Every structure is written in C-alpha cells, then in structure tokens.
C-alpha cells in the first residue's frame, strides 16, 4: 500500500462504518465491566437510592392529605412523590451519564485513543449513554419495588395505563436526551461542568412538581410559565395520571402530554446532535481531545 493510499484510509470514514452493533455492544460491555469493578460504590449507590424513597415516606407522614387531595392527586403523598423521585433520579442519571463519561474519557486520555481507532464516534457516544440507561433502570425498578412492596404504595396498573406510562417514559427520555447530547458537546469544549444538565436537573426538581403539586405554583405565574418550558413537566404529569389514576392514552390530558413531548423530541434531538457534533469537531480541530 502506498503512502497516498494510507493517507486516504486515515481520512476516510469507511472503517468507522463497520459492525456498528458489535462496536456498540463492546462499548456497553466495557463500561459495565468498569462499573462492576467498583462494587462497594454500586452497593452504596443502590442503598442511597432506596433510602431516598424511605425518606419521602417519612416526609409524607407530615403532609396533610386534605391539602394534597385539593390539588387533585389523591391522598397519598408517598405515591405522589414516588413517581417524581424515581423518574427524576433516573432522568438525572441518564442525562449526566454521557457528559460525565465524556469528561472521564478526556481526563483518562482515552477519548483521543478511541477517536483514532475505527470506532464510529456516534456509536461510541450511544454506547456510553446506553450503559447509563441500563444501570439506572435497575435503580428505577428497585425504587418502585421498595415503594410498592415495602411501603404500601398502590398504583393502578392496567394494560392501558402501563402502555401510557411506558410511552410517556420513552418520550421523556428521548426529549431529555437531546439535552444530554448538548451537555456532552459543551463539556468536550469547556472541559469542566455540564451547565446544561445542571440547570435542567435543578429546574426539574424545583419546577416540574417532583415533590409538590404544580397547583402550588398558581400564585407565581412567572414560575408556572417557566415550568411549562421543560419536557419533564409534561412527562411527569402524564406518568402520574397513568400510575395514580390508571389513565390511558385516550385520556385528554395524557394525550396532550404525549403530543407536547413528541414535539419537544422532534425539535430538540436534531439540535442536540448538532451540538454534540460541534463539540467533537471543535476539540479535534483545536487538538484538545486530551486536554482538561
């Protein structure tokens, strides 16, 4: 092979297109192995997740059921907060996973190494994301199991409500993952801190009604307006309706939530991909794939 051909091979993207599924599974597996090598951390993380549910059980003992019922969410604060706490924790972990992993790879000097191998970088980033989704899913199941089996939370689970919940859950992930993609792109360039996910996670916790009914925001129209700008607000509303009242996709409110989340996804995902692409290109052009 002559030098010119070699240069063409390095310039080309052909090698990167090969066996994307194998590459994806390899990246997920590698990351799972790294995670499992820190067993004490995994156990502590699981225990702290479970503890957070138990904590809201005790917070719920102070809540006035009448005031909660007036807001239209039944009388059990634990049931109300469990959906919020479980899904917001899951979302937060998924959102931050990609930017944290990217930061980790940059600091470890391995992002540059991966970038010069034939690994498709989009597949690489998807693999990093998928690992977060898989591990966090176990925590999510654990949280719901503790709530329902250990603390007496009662959800109305019918085929229709489960389908509605699942659909809203997937749409929540898709719409918010766009923000995760943006965060990873920004972290690559700015190296420290992922302000996008930090702001979104903080605002979700504060304004999407994770711990209190959104009706409490009525005296503050400005805050109410801001809360409407986050996809998670709609996802949480729909998921609560599905699990607490057994609502299905035919319910007007749930359907509206689904439509709005779909719109968010359609607009945000291309933007997220663009920002990720911009971040990756920028650090390659600047030669800062390993600097932090």
């Amino acid at each position, binding site marked *: 092979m002559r030098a010119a051909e070699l240069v063409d091979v390095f310039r080309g993207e052909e090698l990167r297109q090969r066996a994307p599924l194998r590459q994806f599974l390899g990246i997920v597996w590698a990351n799972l192995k790294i995670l499992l090598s820190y067993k004490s951390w995994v156990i502590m993380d699981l*225990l702290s997740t479970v503890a957070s549910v138990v904590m809201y059980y005790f917070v719920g003992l102070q809540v006035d059921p009448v005031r909660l019922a007036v807001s239209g969410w039944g009388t059990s604060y634990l049931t109300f907060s469990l959906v919020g706490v479980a899904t917001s924790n899951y979302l937060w972990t998924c959102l931050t996973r990609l930017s944290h992993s990217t930061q980790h790879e940059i600091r470890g000097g391995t992002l540059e190494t991966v970038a010069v191998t034939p690994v498709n970088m989009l597949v690489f980033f998807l693999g990093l994301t998928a690992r977060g989704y898989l591990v966090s899913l176990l925590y999510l199941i654990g949280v719901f199991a503790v709530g329902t089996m250990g603390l007496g939370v009662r959800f109305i689970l019918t085929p229709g409500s489960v389908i509605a919940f699942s659909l809203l859950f997937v749409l929540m992930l898709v719409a918010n993952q766009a923000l995760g993609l943006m965060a990873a792109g920004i972290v690559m360039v700015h190296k420290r801190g992922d302000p996008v996910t930090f702001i979104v996670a903080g605002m979700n916790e504060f304004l999407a009604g994770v711990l209190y009914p959104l009706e409490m925001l009525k005296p503050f129209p400005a805050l109410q307006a801001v809360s409407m700008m986050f996809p998670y607000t709609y996802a949480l509303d729909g998921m609560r309706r599905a699990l607490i009242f057994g609502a299905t996709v035919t319910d007007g409110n749930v359907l509206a939530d689904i439509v709005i989340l779909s719109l968010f996804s359609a607009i945000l995902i291309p933007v997220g991909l663009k920002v990720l692409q911009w971040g990756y290109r920028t650090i390659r052009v600047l030669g800062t794939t390993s600097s932090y």
Partner: protein
Amino acid sequence: MKLDEIIRFLSEPVQEGKVSTSDKVKAFITRDFKIWWTYKLWVTLDILGSLTFVATYYFVSKIVTTQALMDSGYIADYLTFAVIGIAFQHYVFSSVSSLSEAIREEQWAGTMETILASKTSFGTFLLGESVFRFIIGSYFLLASLGMGFAIGARFNVTAPSLLSAALVALLLIASHMVVGILGAGAILKLKQGDPIVWAFSWLTQLFSGVLYPLGLLPSYLQWVGAAFPLTYSLDGLRRCLMNGEDLSSAVIFADVTMLTLFVVVMLPLSLWVFRKAYDSTRREGALGQY
C-alpha cells in the same frame, strides 16, 4: 554535572524548611480558591442549585402540617425546620465529600505523589484541603439560610441563643471533620466511590431528622439517628434558631455534651484509621493510582 555528582546531590539530607504549617495551609487555600474561581459559571450554578432546593421546600411546606414538629418540641413552621435541616446537612455533606473528591482529583491529575514527595506532610495537605472546603461550604450555608429567610423562614434568636448556635455549629464542623478524615482514608484505598461519605449522606438524610422530626421514626429506628453527630447538631441548632433556647436548656446542653464526646472519642480513632490506610497505600506504591 557528572552522574556521581547528581547522585551525591540527591542523596544529601533535605534541609529543614522554613515554611510553617499555617503558611502551607494558606497556600492550599489560595490555590484551591484560584482553581474554584476559574469556573465562575459552575460556582454560580452551584449556588443557584442550593437556592432552588431550598425554594422547593417552600412549596412542600404548603401541604405539610406542623403537628409532628410541635410534638417534637419545635416552635415554628415547617419551612424554617426544613431550611435549617437542608442548609446544615448540605453544608457538612458538601464539605466532607469534596475532601474525598479533592484527593481523587489529586490522584487523577497525578499530583498526589508530587505533593507528598515534597516536604508537605499528608496531615498538612488534609488540613489545607479541609479548611478550604468548609470555608466554601459556609458560603453556601449562609446563602441557603438567607434564601430561606427571604422566602418566609422565621428565626427566633437572642444573643445567648445565637452564641449557643455558634458553639453547636463549631462542634458540628469538628465532628464532621472526623467523617471527612475517615472518608479520605477510604478513598486512598478504594480509589472510587467513598463508601463512608456515601453512607454518611444517605443515613443522615434518613435518620438524622433533616426533613422530618425524629419522633416520626419508629422507636427501633430512632437509635440509628442517635449514632450520628448531625442528629444532635440539627436538634441543637433548631432549638437555638427556632425556639430561641440557649445552653441553659437541658436538651441543648445534652446535645453539646454528646457532640463533644463524639469529637473526643472519634477524632483520634479516625486519625489512627487514616494513618493505617495511608501507610498501607504507600507500602503498595499506590498513592498515584486511580
């Protein structure tokens, strides 16, 4: 310079330095502050994060009754109760966990071995890192309490109750330095996921009465809370800042006594545990590993 001259130079005993420990600690604080201040956006977001968390409990307080608080002897509303719990729990947790994170950073950056190869002892290093973390934590603490006050938390203080609160706060810091030292030892050995700080975080959130009075816990769980200094600290601080009580109150005096005992017993023990972890890591040549 020839090889044997270089070897002779390196073999010479190191002269005693003239830099005092306090100057080194100041240097650590200055260095860490400069690094911290480099990330201004992150600092702003961190403060905003603390403030929105406090604000969240303003809305939670709208659906909460105060019966359980009154049954536990606190004279105030839930917002004030929660603001004190959140602000001080966050203060100690962020101070303690950031100490482990600082050690982890040094491991990552490969500067841990460099610092320890210099004439700086690990004790000085640890002190420098801790003092900076607690200073920064205090900044967030004041911001959280200020935010709480702005949104309606009401503190009932007199000069004696404020002095008593300051004493409890000092004991809170001293007792949690112990947790920080234990966490630092754990991170030296385990490298990732400091189990001590993690366990401290979730156990105190659950059992120390951060968001609810301990009276709500079943009696068989209340003894768990009694094992943590945060439980006594929060109880003492709340009684001083919400009820206007001072050291003459038997309950606050008991809290102060328990905290003092904890510091006297646990501080030497934590230093001993840390020394063991440090020596073992040095023997393994793993100080720079991550």
